């Protein structure tokens, strides 16, 4: 019979294929750990024994940077790769949180706390070979503060302004004037004393770029650090190469590659296979057991400045009522979140402050887990039929925490529509567009309590507005140094009492390296993943 109908062709072959596909999907969960050879960076797999001529270091990180200019946007991924490696600051916050000299050899503060004099290292120079002069530093401070240099806006070659993230410019608002006394002496006058300003000068807001490179920061690095950007392969990696003319101790590696791997298993497998040297931020703490062999791997566990925060859009009608926000905070069992998401590693926190802050106080008891009280508060507030849009960033810790919290909110009668957002979308829609009710992301910056001050950050996505908090923060910032911790504690407590957000836990600094890698900083005290202290055997 020649006239076979098409369906008879769907025979054994098709059936086997379909079942095979089902099994393939099953194993996909296991196999995404394999990195495809095509995506590994050339030279990344060179073992130290085989090629001493080209010394490389490959670091896996996530999420990827969005722009090469570390000061242009809020996400810290660009600074993670470049601060201290490509760009330097006047002073450097060390692993214990203490400022150390870098571009400035020393500095003095006037008795009224308003005038700082920095004495620059005369040997310091940019990758271009030009000296890091006091005048160059003034231009940097002016650019961050106002977006202008010598009274003219900084523009890219195509005429568009070179953006400065509000998060960074705000730190410099307190600067009244910066002047170059002589090529190596810089005088900065503040409008009022500020305890946090000096720390900002040791982090991303204070990075010093070559003024000649301001226009092209988004495409070409212009730092004074031991490395410079060789190539940014979008969606894959950022390759740094040694700055041959570095003024200080030369970089130990010919190339340093930050490789961006979204999948936690893929990251782990890459380290197991030896194609990378370091996992800068381990995203699947449940699988740390794979690296238990100390002969092969080192696990570094310490603290970060990152508060993993469930933001509540204080400006949205449903969440304006402080009782509703408190009820949400009361509904969340942070201990369970920490166990499920980080395998119990990290510290539960109760406000926008981490244990390494000088003003840290354990506020995890404020609005602590109490579902019954949560229900009562919701009833009192008349919010018995609440539906909230939950849009966490699509990052492993955030979606995992969101899964837990969705169930916890359901338990007290709050409906949640869970919509994880891919990272660039999240930045646009949630962080910039403020189109959300609840979201989760880690706030990695040091001493970022002031983002809740709506006089400093009028458009920040918290939507929080409390003049009392603004005053507390300001009072603490300009107080004599010895009163700073106690006063800042009050500000942190105000946030907790207002349930401005739900601060879940301090993200642990979980770095996994090959056993041959040494010098990884235990605590992450700035935005930077600092390569300059790292060596390999």
């Amino acid at each position, binding site marked *: *019979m020649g*006239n076979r*109908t*098409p*369906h*008879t062709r*769907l*025979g*054994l072959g*098709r*059936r086997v294929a*379909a*079942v095979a*596909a*089902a*099994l393939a*999907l*099953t*194993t*996909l*969960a*296991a196999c*995404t*750990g394999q990195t495809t050879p095509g995506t590994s960076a050339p030279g990344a797999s060179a073992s130290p024994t085989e090629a001493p001529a080209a010394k490389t270091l490959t670091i896996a990180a996530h999420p990827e940077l969005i722009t090469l200019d570390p000061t242009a946007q809020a996400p810290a991924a660009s600074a993670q790769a470049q601060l201290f490696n490509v760009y330097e600051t006047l002073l450097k916050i060390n692993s214990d949180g203490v400022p150390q000299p870098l571009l400035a050899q020393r500095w003095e503060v006037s008795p009224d706390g308003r005038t700082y004099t920095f004495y620059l290292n005369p040997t310091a120079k940019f990758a271009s070979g030009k000296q890091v002069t006091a005048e160059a530093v003034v231009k940097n401070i002016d650019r961050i503060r106002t977006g202008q240099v010598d009274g003219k806006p900084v523009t890219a070659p195509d005429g568009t302004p070179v953006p400065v993230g509000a998060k960074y410019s705000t730190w410099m608002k307190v600067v009244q004037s910066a002047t170059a006394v002589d090529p190596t002496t810089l005088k900065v006058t503040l409008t009022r004393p500020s305890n946090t300003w000096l720390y900002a000068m040791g982090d991303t807001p204070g990075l010093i770029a070559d003024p000649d490179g301001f226009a092209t920061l988004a495409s070409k690095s212009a730092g004074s650090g031991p490395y410079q950007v060789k190539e940014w392969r979008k969606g894959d990696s950022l390759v740094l190469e040694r700055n041959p003319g570095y003024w200080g101790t030369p970089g130990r590696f010919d190339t340093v590659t930050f490789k961006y791997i979204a*999948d*936690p*298993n893929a990251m*782990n497998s890459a380290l197991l296979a030896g194609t990378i040297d370091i996992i800068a931020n381990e*995203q*699947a703490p*449940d*699988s740390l*057991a*794979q690296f238990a062999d100390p002969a092969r791997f080192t696990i570094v566990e310490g603290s970060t400045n990152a508060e993993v925060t469930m933001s509540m859009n204080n400006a949205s009608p449903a969440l304006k009522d402080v009782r509703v926000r408190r009820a949400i905070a009361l509904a969340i069992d942070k201990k*369970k979140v920490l*166990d*499920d998401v980080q395998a119990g590693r990290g510290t539960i926190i109760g406000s926008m402050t981490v244990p390494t802050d000088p003003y840290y106080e354990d506020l995890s008891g404020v609005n602590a887990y109490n579902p019954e009280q949560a229900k009562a508060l919701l009833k009192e507030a008349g919010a018995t039929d609440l539906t909230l849009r939950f849009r966490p960033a*699509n990052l*492993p810790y955030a*979606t*995992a925490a969101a*899964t*837990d919290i*969705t*169930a916890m909110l*359901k*338990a007290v009668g709050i409906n949640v*529509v*869970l*919509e*994880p957002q891919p990272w660039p979308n999240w930045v646009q829609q949630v962080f910039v567009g403020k189109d959300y009710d609840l979201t989760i992301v880690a706030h990695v910056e040091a001493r970022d309590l002031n983002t809740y001050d709506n006089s400093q950050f009028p458009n920040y996505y918290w939507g929080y507005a409390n003049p009392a908090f603004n005053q507390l923060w300001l009072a603490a910032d300009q107080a004599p140094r010895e009163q700073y911790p106690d006063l800042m504690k009050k500000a942190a407590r105000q946030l907790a009492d207002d349930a401005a957000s739900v601060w879940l836990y301090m993200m642990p600094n979980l770095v996994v390296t090959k056993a041959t890698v040494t010098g990884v900083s235990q605590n992450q005290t700035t935005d930077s993943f600092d390569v300059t202290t790292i060596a390999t055997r």
Partner: protein
Amino acid sequence: MRGLELRVGAVLVTLVVAAALLSRFWTPYDPTMPAGARLQPASAAHPLGTDAFGRDLLSRLLAGAQSTVYVGVIAVGIAVLIGVPLGLWAAQLPGRASEVLLRATDVAQAFPALLLAILLAGLFGGSTETAMVAIGLASIPQFLRVARAGALQVLASDFVLAARACGIGRLAIARTHVLPNIAPLVGVQATVSFALAILAEAALSYLGLGTRPPTPTWGSMLQQAQSVWFAHPEQAVIPGVAIAVAVLGFNLLGDGLREHLDPRLREEVA
């Protein structure tokens, strides 16, 4: 041997459908809420253990069958309701127009359901509905072809010629003579498409483009198992086996039905 395929297929499909129906009314625990410590091994309280968030895996597996069957039924329904009438129409088109239509379906078939679903998810956001519509639309060409081929055979038969000679209209012929005769073919194709729809649905929710969390699906269970894969591979194996069982069941059922319903094929095999 022939009966065996049909029987095994029927048993597996019944299992899946029964799980889906059961979960509408009862699961051991709420599949979206924690019910104990996380990552527990199988025990009397949790026959399949718990997942990384302490939710009961058996409950999630049962509830996952629901999305699977739901998406499959609607997707295949869309494909049948659009594909079969188109096929009947195509069978009655003159030769050249029919050719053009067939080539057009070739082009449509070149787009996998996944690609279409990603496109729809990009436009409308990932959800159960976009997944169903995408899988359904992508399956239309298969039904069009089956219906057309079957209809061509029926239309060439003497009783249709007789009916036509009596002046009965095309629509009436299609309804009273063609449709009943190609129904078995369409039924077989539906089971096979159902298996493919299950796979596509699992893949979509694995990618986060299907049913939104926390509603459990087998695909999203696989996805969540990924972060604990090395320490707890059983977390991925459980939904994986469920998907394989469902796909195998519908495929065996489809093949069994085909052999059972197609007398010609029965002779061939004999």
